[in-house]
């Protein structure tokens, strides 16, 4: 087990290095430069490029960058004076992660409950309703959903504020916009794996032995039905924690999703790199944790390959 963990971490680090090199080269290959702003003349731009060493060969810059990274130095932003990239991540990540975390919990709890309900219910109408909702949830893109939520519940009904994350109420609309898609996904996964697990011999056996229905559902069926959910949850939580550009822009949330897109279009090289590394590391970590959790739940999954 431990050997497996180390091996996975090793592979993760190699992946991250490849990601750094490829992103660095791509970012520097894009036309334009960070100082092409406002009414800055070309000679001023050259002055600034020289100041930050951006006029040197790309490979030399890459070597320097990786050298700095090994010392824990992510560099400074070219577009925000006095802001280091690590500060920027520390500032922006909490809002995104809180939002993503809440959305994930909501999706997990509601998705699991509605999935089970659809699986065990005797009413076709309820099953149909859950199915319709989950199909809609998967097919409506979140920028449409976010806008509709904002216009209906914010502007028309004035139930919820739409600007920022000032109070708990501010979370309702952005969390809903973020959670609906993973909720629908989880719900469908749970429903199908739960229905399947209900047919298994060990469930029939458990029932025949007279074990309480709650115990059968929670311990025997749910535990096994959750394995595909956990596998899917790794990338899902990584996706939620790294922020949605659309939701952050529409609800004016100072998170890393919005920062990332702004940094790319501004050619803020160091910020793009820093956020790529941060998001990449997060995704690798989430996938590793999901795999380990599966192994803990299902002893049949061997992690020693």
């Amino acid at each position, binding site marked *: 087990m431990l050997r497996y963990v180390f091996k996975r971490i090793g592979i993760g680090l190699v992946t991250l290095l490849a990601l750094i090199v490829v992103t660095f080269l791509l970012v520097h290959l*894009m*036309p*334009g430069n960070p*100082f*092409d*702003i*406002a*009414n800055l*003349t*070309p*000679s*001023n731009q050259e002055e*600034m490029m020289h*100041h930050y060493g951006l006029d040197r060969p790309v490979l030399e810059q890459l070597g320097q960058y990786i050298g700095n990274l090994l010392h824990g130095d992510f560099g400074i932003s070219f*577009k*925000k*004076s*006095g*802001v280091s990239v690590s500060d*920027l991540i520390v*500032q*922006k990540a909490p809002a995104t992660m809180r939002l993503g975390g809440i959305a994930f919990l*909501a999706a997990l*709890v*509601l998705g699991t*409950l*509605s999935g*089970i*309900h659809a699986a*065990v*219910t005797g009413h076709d109408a309820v099953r149909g309703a859950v199915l319709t909702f989950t199909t809609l949830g998967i097919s409506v893109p979140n920028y449409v959903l976010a*806008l509709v939520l*904002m216009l209906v519940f*914010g*502007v028309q*009904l*004035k*139930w*919820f*504020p*739409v*600007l*920022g994350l000032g*109070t708990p*109420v501010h979370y*309702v609309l952005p969390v*809903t916009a973020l959670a609906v898609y993973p909720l629908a996904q989880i719900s469908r996964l749970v429903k199908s794996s739960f229905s399947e697990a209900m047919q298994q011999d060990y469930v029939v056996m458990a029932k025949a032995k007279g074990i309480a*229905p*709650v115990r059968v*559902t929670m311990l025997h069926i749910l535990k096994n039905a959750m394995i595909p959910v956990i596998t899917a949850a790794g990338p899902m939580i990584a996706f939620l924690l790294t922020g949605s550009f659309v939701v952050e*822009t*529409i*609800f*004016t949330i*100072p998170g890393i999703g*919005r*920062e990332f897109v*702004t940094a790319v*279009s501004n*050619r803020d090289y160091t910020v793009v790199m820093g956020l790529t590394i941060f998001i990449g590391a997060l995704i690798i970590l989430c996938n590793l944790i999901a795999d380990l959790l599966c192994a803990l739940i299902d002893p049949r999954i061997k992690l020693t390959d």
Partner: protein
Amino acid sequence: MKTIRKIIAVLLVLALALAAAPMTCASADGGEKVLNIATFSGAGDLDPAGIAIDMWTEYCKMCVDPLIRFDEEGNVVYEAAESYEVSDDGLVWTFHLRENGKWSDGSPVTAGDFINTIHRALNPENGMSIYASVLYPIVGAQEARSGEGSLDDVAAVALDDYTLQFTLKAPCTYFTSLLTVGPFYPSKTGLATLEDPSWWKNPETSLGNGAYCLTEYVDGDHYFLKKNPSYWNADAVNIDTVNVFLIYDQQALLAAYQTGEVDVATGLPDYIGDAYAGSEELFIWNMLTSKFILPNLSVQPLDDLRVREAIALGLNREEICAVIGADYIPSTSYVAEFMMSNASSEYFSKEREPLFTEDIAKAQELLAEAGYPGGEGFPTLTYTYPNSDKDALLAQAIQAQLKQNLGINIELNGVEDQVYSSTRAEGSYDLIRHSWTADFNDPINYLDLYTSYSGGNYNGVNSPEYDALIEASNETADQTERNDLLHQAEQLLVGENFYVIPVATQVYICLWNPRLDNVTINEKGEPMYRYADLAD
């Protein structure tokens, strides 16, 4: 199984009820007057010697007073300075500071605080000083910035705590207009330093000498201000707290206004102009922006004056702007339509006859003379533009008009902002959309871009006659004479040679709470909230 179903059903209902429970957001004012402003752009920083662009422009109007500024009619308003005088040769400018000028910590505003910004802006170590060049008319400034000279030799000096003197290399009749750009604003000596590049974010070091001062700054999201108790004119300030939110999405901006979360929203979608027409909530902000087509003079047949003139005359700008939306106004002026003249109380563009008049029949004749009757044999040119919604509409409208009116085909090439900038700088285009927004209120801001030696001359204009007019205008100390020279230069650039082809100017569509009162407008058409009030 039944109990489980019930439990789940109850849990689901509870969860749904919780999610849908409407809660009202209580505003804790307690008699305090709070103004919430949403602006469209948070680009740049709050350091006058740094990236003093969009965010700074908004911030300084509330928190940092320059020496002087101008009102809507272009009259001087004394702020940190009480008076100034110029030597007869136009080279030495002496400003007398008001002795009751105070920073928000109660300390006096001194001439040294102005020098602090100037020295930081010119320091070769300062990698963020994007407007250092506005200081270059001052003796020794350019040398200090390039590292060839010393900051000590820059002829911007504090004669005493309340007297500031600038010595210029040559007379500069628009020097007072330059004073409204970042590097001429004060910053507190000892607190605003190059050693601490984030001083401007910290309310302890980011002091104001204006109506308000900073209390909180959250990068890319908002900054909060409170009334500056030490402000010399504090009695005229009515609002206690100003909260400025940076909202980059137009739809979100509009929603924040409609839910009442902000009192002012600037830069809204164009249809708001129609939706709120006649309402006292609507405010149109005239920008000093000019949108024009740049023909590449080294590309055939754009090197032919008749072809350039045909393109300029063959566009129906009313129709083009009707397609784009209410925030685009047709214009045949290269110097921004709404720029105040320095020689009269009119717009510069209204002091003269139009530079040219649209005339499709004449355009067709010109094209025929050039050897392309009805557009026959005319090569397919490419029109490059940055890929925004508005610019795409503008491109399509121009394409359709040229096809319909002149029989010319152009290919559209929409590219990402940064690609657009480098294409323009490299000159690798046939026709390109260009846009210029003035940094300060003077036509020279536009006109000196097309001298043969200008770094902003992207299409190869090379006219000794034009260079001579611009140089003559820089040398004269007589404002009226200078203004004439600038008009001649614009006529030469546009009306005679069509080196640039103006299409439109832009306005910002804004909404504000009808309770908001006493907002003033400056010479650039920008609203100023320093003395604003919110009626009960």
